[in-house]
């Protein structure tokens, strides 16, 4: 469901807008960047946040 929510939010954005997706480590952290890239979105970065175990994925539409 995490990528489903990501895709719904991306659909609402304009081209060039950036979406920050915060996820815990695990399957979504691997799946979201891969699926977003496959869908033609630009994955700008995947980085750990200040919150332990939480990562931020930056995706450009």
């Amino acid at each position, binding site marked *: *469901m995490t*990528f*489903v*929510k*990501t*895709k*719904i939010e991306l*659909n609402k954005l304009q081209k060039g807008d950036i979406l920050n997706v915060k996820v815990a480590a695990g399957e979504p952290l691997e799946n979201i960047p891969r*699926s977003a890239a*496959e*869908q033609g979105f630009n994955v700008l970065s995947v980085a750990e946040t200040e919150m332990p175990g939480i990562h931020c994925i930056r995706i450009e539409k």
Partner: protein
Amino acid sequence: MVNEKKLSIIAFSGDFDKLTAVFTLATGAAAVGYEVNLFFTFWGLDAIKIKQGRSPVGKGFLPKVFGVMMGGLKASPVSRLNFLGVSPKIFRYLMRKNSVATLEELVDAARQLKINFYACEMAMHVLGLQKTDFIPEVKDVLGVTSFLRLSEGGQTLFI
């Protein structure tokens, strides 16, 4: 030739857990670019009724009785250990607690992802239902041959 990016699901069951499977697969596939067709038939039609609770939907006495007994999405029972409707409430609580999308959230996601909803003409006829009894996202009322034509070339599941 198989179109790898098309998934069609025959949603036969009106059970909470099976509908959750239908909408989880459908939304996941749509999110990664699949064309997704959901064909609701018999008890599966409960998932797309406008009235989500127990309501005398349908034309005629017996269809109305069925309508009240079966209800809509919010009245869907789990397929095992339903405990007179207590189990779906427990499942919804557990889903929220564990940050898992509830059935209602999945249906909403399916609507936002513009998944194609279709209703089975024959089942509607038997249950006395009309297209106006369903949510507006239901694109069309189909028979078997039309659904087969629609699903041709992709993967088809029966749930």
